[in-house]
């Protein structure tokens, strides 16, 4: 079905472990295709959110259309589809990959293959992509390109003999990469004369055009005025604009099979353009949607409260606005005795959670109190009723619970062999089940464990890094639920349960956790007018106790005329510090305490 038009199109993405230089390479490719001026190069254009740049990762995928004349003078259209680089967004990554025919695999010339490299390669292979390995950072003194080539061949089984050796940072070898894209990655070959099938791989909300969906036309054609239908949701719209990214939105008369572009159709909510859904024509629909669609569900939940109770409505408004652009963010109102009115928010993972919180604080100028993240537990009651619990406070009376289940992930850790012991010890501590260990080469292993999600949602990666001096890489995917002996651990301050501090833990860990949290809170909560007992309890049974001694002295001995202003200013400063505190019963608790309950190790 190949035709001359599609022969000149290449749709590809770049996959890499974090920090291996994906975004820099993307910039360089754009640069040699003449998309950007020097000035534009000041920033990495594909990551346009501050947050993304600070964290060095790409959160949302984007696409750019380039035109490139190869060495024979033939002009090609290259569609570079950027993919998120974090496990939280694995589903989005898979949809972006599904929009491509090939992928450039960037491997760092000194570090070689990492856990994410592998995970990405497997994902790309699942989508039958042609993988083009590229070895980056060859200008570094520690670069070992031959060793990395061999590793790519041995571990992944890809031919790496003629992999371009490049330095994206210094612009070395970029042309070779582009030539390689054209020579190795297959052209698209969809039939443009059959009913429309367009894959949505991302979307965002634009104030003027409504939702703009990023699409890859697999089959058929699409133009302004067409009546379209979202095959998963059944919603219908009339197309107001179609176009391509150059990198800015540029209207075109028609998008045809093999092309990547955008469609706007006065859509009000990103929920109507679900990533992975198939767009077809309403009056001449395709028989089946494209494969691989699923509804994305949050994996991690936490309570988000305004530090200042009066800002509740502002927080709701801000969450609404974020949700317009982020279909995977969920929230619903909840109330906490300790924290007042707030929201239980669902996120794809911890990174997603962090990003949302930071955006709320930064872009909406909100001061937040967040509770420790929790996963969704499945609770089966004695009477057979099943409940999903995302807030530990809502766990029913244990006497009426038949059993509970918790989510489990398959985790892959890659590290130098000398850390095997430390890694296994950590996984063991986190209730892991050993699955497999594979030597990638003499000095590196890939260890596979099954781990309960609630053991890794907070500080697992930090702990892993500290125990392996930063050499381990980590990747995971949710594999299902398993029955588990779980209990609710309550924390009492001054004899009263603080609902926002409750958490669900495995029975065997309750004692250590309880003691750890009590100690941590003792450090974090400043001394106050009264002695404050801190207790950890399971049901009515106290399992740990600490005491914050009462403040004995908080007074200025001397205060004369001149000191009046100074003294008042001292108090004003003290008062300012108190604003970071939350009144829980009679106790003032620093905001960070609510998050800290999971911080150990």
């Amino acid at each position, binding site marked *: 079905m190949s035709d001359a038009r599609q022969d000149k199109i290449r749709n590809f993405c770049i996959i890499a472990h974090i920090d291996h230089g994906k975004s820099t390479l993307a910039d360089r490719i754009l640069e040699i295709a003449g998309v950007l001026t020097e000035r534009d190069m000041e920033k990495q254009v594909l990551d346009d959110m501050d947050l993304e740049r600070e964290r060095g990762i790409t959160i949302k995928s984007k696409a750019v259309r380039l035109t490139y004349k190869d060495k024979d003078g033939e002009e090609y259209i290259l569609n570079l589809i950027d993919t998120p680089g974090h496990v939280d967004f694995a589903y989005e990554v898979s949809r972006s990959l599904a929009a491509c025919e090939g992928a450039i695999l960037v491997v760092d010339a000194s570090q070689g293959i990492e856990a994410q490299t592998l995970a990405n390669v497997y994902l790309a292979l699942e989508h039958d992509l042609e993988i083009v390995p590229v070895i980056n950072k060859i200008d570094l003194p520690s670069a070992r390109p031959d060793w990395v080539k061999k590793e790519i061949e041995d571990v992944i089984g890809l031919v790496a003999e003629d992999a371009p050796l490049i330095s994206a940072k210094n612009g070395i070898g970029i042309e070779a990469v582009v030539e390689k894209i054209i020579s190795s990655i297959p052209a698209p070959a969809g039939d443009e004369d059959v009913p429309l099938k367009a894959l949505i791989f991302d979307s965002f909300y634009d104030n003027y055009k409504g939702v703009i969906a990023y699409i890859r036309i697999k089959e058929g054609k699409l133009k302004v005025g067409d009546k379209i239908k979202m095959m998963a949701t059944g919603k219908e719209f009339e197309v107001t604009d179609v176009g391509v990214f150059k990198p800015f939105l540029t209207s075109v008369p028609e998008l045809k099979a093999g092309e990547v572009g955008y469609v706007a159709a006065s859509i009000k909510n990103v929920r109507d353009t679900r990533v992975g859904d198939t767009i077809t024509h309403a009056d001449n629909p395709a028989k089946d949607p494209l494969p691989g669609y699923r509804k994305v569900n949050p994996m991690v939940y936490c309570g988000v409260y305004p530090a200042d109770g009066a800002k509740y409505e502002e927080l709701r408004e801000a969450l609404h606005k974020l949700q317009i652009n982020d279909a995977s963010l969920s929230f619903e109102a909840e109330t906490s005795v300790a924290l007042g009115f707030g929201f239980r928010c669902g996120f794809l993972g911890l990174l997603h959670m962090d990003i949302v919180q930071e955006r709320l604080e930064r872009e909406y100028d909100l001061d937040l109190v967040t509770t420790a993240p929790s996963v969704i537990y499945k609770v089966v009651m004695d009477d057979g009723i099943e409940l999903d619990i995302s807030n530990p406070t809502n766990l029913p009376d244990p006497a009426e619970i038949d059993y509970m289940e918790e989510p489990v992930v398959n985790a892959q850790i890659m590290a130098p062999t000398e850390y095997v012991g430390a890694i296994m010890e950590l996984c063991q501590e986190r209730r892991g089940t050993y699955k497999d260990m594979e030597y990638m080469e003499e000095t590196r292993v890939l260890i596979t464990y099954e781990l309960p999600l609630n053991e890794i949602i907070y500080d697992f990666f930090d702990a892993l890094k500290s125990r392996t001096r930063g050499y381990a890489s980590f990747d995971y995917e949710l594999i299902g639920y398993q029955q588990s002996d779980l209990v609710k651990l309550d924390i009492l301050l001054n004899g009263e349960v603080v609902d926002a501090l409750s958490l669900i833990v495995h029975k065997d860990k309750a004692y250590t956790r309880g003691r750890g949290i009590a100690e941590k809170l003792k450090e974090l909560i400043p001394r*106050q*007018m*009264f002695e404050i007992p801190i207790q950890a309890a399971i049901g009515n049974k106290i399992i740990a106790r600490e005491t914050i001694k009462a*403040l*004995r*002295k*908080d*007074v*200025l*001995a*001397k*205060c*004369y*005329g*001149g000191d*009046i*202003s100074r*003294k*008042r200013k*001292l*108090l*004003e400063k*003290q*008062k300012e510090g*108190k604003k970071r505190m939350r009144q829980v019963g009679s106790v003032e608790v620093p905001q960070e305490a609510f998050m800290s309950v999971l911080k150990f190790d």
Partner: protein
Amino acid sequence: MKSGTIGLYVHIPFCLRKCLYCDFPSYAQKGHLMDEYLKALKVEADQVKCKIAGRRIKTIFLGGGTPTLYHEKELVQLLDYFKQSYLICDEAEITTEANPETLNPQKLKVLREAGINRISIGMQAGQDKHLKTLGRIHSVVDVERGVDWARRAGFGNINLDLMFGLPNQSVDEWIESLDKAVKMGVEHISAYALILEEGTPLYELVDQGDLQSPPEDMEREMYHTGVHFLKSQGYNHYEISNFAKPGKECKHNLLYWQNNEYIGLGSGAHSYLHGNRWSNYANICKYIDRISKYGNGIEQSEEISLPTQRFETVMMGLRLNSGVSKEMFKERFGHGLEYYYGDIIENLKEKGMLIEADTSIYLTTKGMDLQNSVLLHFME
């Protein structure tokens, strides 16, 4: 309040030697500026005359530094200058601060005759070893002799300044210090907790571990044992750190604690008048320079809003054991304490920090120890 009496504070920033704990605007080795400084004070006194026209001065306080570093003749001249410039009440309380090493019978006699009727002597400790640690240049005997001379010169109102919580000080030593002061028969004792201010040599010594400050519990024991002891010796505990025989409370300091108005002259001095508080440059040269150029030495000035005035009235008043007078407060601000602070007062009463009597509110012993925490409740 506008027609009421006011206080006059005069700052003398000179010392023979700077004490190791001192972060006040006082300086040693600046003796060559003393004459010029005196002139500047007189110029400033002239300049503020119009600001306080018609107001009578109820208290004068020569503070320092060490006012008695000046020759008695110079001090008398200064005082006479004030008497010519201002309306001073006949029965005004006129205090000078003094350090033992600067006193002699003749000087005390002249000062007393010039109208100074109260003297506040820096004793600080009853053991020479502690005086040494603090960098004081007198002994305990010097203090005893000074008090004796003052008495003979006719001073009927003598204060001794003492400090507790000194490095390596025991509770017993503290009580011994108080006992020595009591035995000297003084009318007034100020007993301050030592505050280690960052930047002072003593702070550095403690910070680096060369000296050990007593633990908080022990420091509180010193305070409470001291309070108990002084009460048993017939002194009223009328302010957090101040004790007086009946009727001998320091009127000048009461004026601060009752948030009344005052004028301060000299480097680093503060004034509070008509809802404004301003302060002079603490640097002596700068002060003298500004006075000669502009007739004032003001570095900064701030308007105190009514809510802040209310808060300051509570903040200062709660230092007094008698607390904040309900009547005074209402007279000053139009509404009573309960109007502005009703819920807060109830809450603090419940916590056992504050007591509400018919005519005033005041802090409990515990409330006094935690005064700052209590005051935060009163902040808007």
